[in-house]
């Protein structure tokens, strides 16, 4: 599934970031393919806020749509 479908509170693992520029940008923040993040908040029709370690990052819906993720159980 993609990041924009995630529900609040779920823990997810990043599978694939399609856009090359976004991938480079994300890896600098510490979000690479394989990293585990938590969905912190979802603004209706708006961005997804995720947390990795102590860092909160807001990701626009259109970007989130291009990030493949998987639920961690």
């Amino acid at each position, binding site marked *: 599934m993609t990041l924009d479908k995630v529900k609040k509170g779920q823990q997810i693992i990043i599978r694939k970031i399609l856009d090359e520029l*976004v991938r480079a940008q994300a890896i*600098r923040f*510490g979000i690479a393919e394989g990293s585990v993040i938590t969905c912190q908040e979802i603004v209706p029709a708006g961005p997804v806020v995720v947390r990795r370690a102590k860092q909160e990052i*807001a990701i626009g819906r259109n*970007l989130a749509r291009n990030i493949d993720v998987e639920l961690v159980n």
Partner: protein
Amino acid sequence: MVDNKEKLINATIVGNPNVGKSVIFNNFTNTYTDVSNYPGTTVEAICGRSGNFVFSDTPGTYGLSGFTEEERLARDIVLRSDMVINVVDATHLERDLFLTQHLIDAGLQIVVALNLMDEAEEQGIYINVEKLEEELGVPVIPTVAVNGDGMEKLLKLLCAARVGNITPGIMENLSYYKLPQRESLLVAEGDLDTANRNNCKPGNRRDLFYRLRRDRVNGIVASVVREITVESSMASRIGHIMLHPVTGIPMLLLTLFLIYQLIGVVVAQTLVGYTEEIVMGGMYQPFIRNLLSGFISEQSTIWSILAGKYGLFTMAVTYLFGLLLPLVMGFQLVLSILEDSGYLPRIAVLMDRILLGMGLNGQAVIPMILGFGCVTMATMSTRMLGSDREKFIAIVILAFTVPCSAQMAIITSMMAGLGFYYALAYGLILFTIMVSTGIILSRLLPGSPSGLWIDLPPVRLPRLSNVLKKTWIKSTDFVQEAVPLFAGGALFLSVLEITGGLEAIENLLVPVTVNLLGLPKEVAGGFIMGFIRREFGTAGLFTTPMNPVQQFVALITVTFFVPCIATAMIIFKERGWKQGAAIWLSIFVLAFVVGGIVSKLISLINIMPGVSVMPVLSGITVLVLALVLYINWNGEESLSR
């Protein structure tokens, strides 16, 4: 003793956004550049000298990559520097050490300032500094920049800057380029500007290098950081309330209401009522007239220049110090508090959806809000936006629709006299034009908004000393900039009035001022002042007596009037003279178009018997806004299908 012959050392302060670079810069150079709690405060290189060092403060950056204009700026300064002071946020080592390692891989001389140690401790993060030093191979100095902790040690250790341990697997890829290490690294990573500068083909190693670097950083962090779980702090809970959809919007509205109460009521009515009427009108003006009448006859030309309608010592001084200054200070105070709290990026997240329709993303909210302080500064901060298209749209919206603090100052005090429904209609018209401008530009320009990607700073209690210092500096800047311009403008108008030139211009402009806008022809003088700064224009307009509806139309027109000279210059600098001139002229024409439409609409409403004008005008504006949004929404639907 400083040996003057000794070579100056260029020391560049680099780090991720919002980690305290500017605090450290101010500390080293004893100056003040803006410090705020949101990523993207510093948008240009700022230099200051101290001893043998020339320090440069740079915009925050997550790597030497140049994805945005700010990052390119930081990259270019780093490439030219002798050494780098890398400021690192101790609470976000995983994120920040990526840049550190990037700098190390570029073979630069580095000292690391491990800043925000106080917050790390609060959050239960313990860092083994010696181990970190050993892993990186460069000196690491723990600091709490806002208290000055560690600053002396950092300054002392600048000469101990070293080249660190490069990421394994990178060096062997660089020897192919016969360039200095810093250049070859960037070229190998596909950096276009650096490749062009050296006349070689950009490489394709970015993905590989970034992954290697990320792995190495994760390894270092795992071996030096120990975390214990602490109860989530008050600040982080407030942060969640700000973002939660159910609580976030009410909180935003409450914040706006409080700002209105503080500025619109306490400052604009109570305080200004006192400074303008009692201090300036009741004490200063009689005093200065009395004083002058000892030297000059009240019928003379000099008298009318100095103490007449547009008099230098009467109108100019009263408006500047009795009306504008208290309000500008009020606005700057509120903005400083907002900037320091960490609320701005969260507002950006909440507003993202709305701004996408205007061809922007949520991040553009930050320049827009800063615009209510000073449009000139805000125009510069559009550099934080992701694409040129977004910068253009943001600059036009700022120049056309956002009134700066000085102008808001006058508008608020005028509105206070006109009453609630006038203020409501005014606010709605402003908002509608703002949104429509964005939507129309977004439709006209090819491309689509870049996606939001913003890191949220922690919510912090604003530091009183920083808030006061910033308010003070911005207000004195305002006075320094405004006084000569205002004095020049007032003088110019007086001369025009005396020579009869003003009357000629007034008569010439009758088709616009009287026929189109329905205002007295004397307002022409106000618009002339408006070319210099909009708030002078606003002030100038109201030296002419008008009825409430005329005042309203005049306010609307001058709100959308051309931006002040300082802003115009920045626009020309950022967009080139062709685009700059096009923007300026369009705004000039559109201001009268908007004013004309509003004026004619009011006359139409007036024909209907028994209706009150302003509520109806507000209603019509809401309908127009709804229509614009509906058309745009339908368009988006059909586009995405």
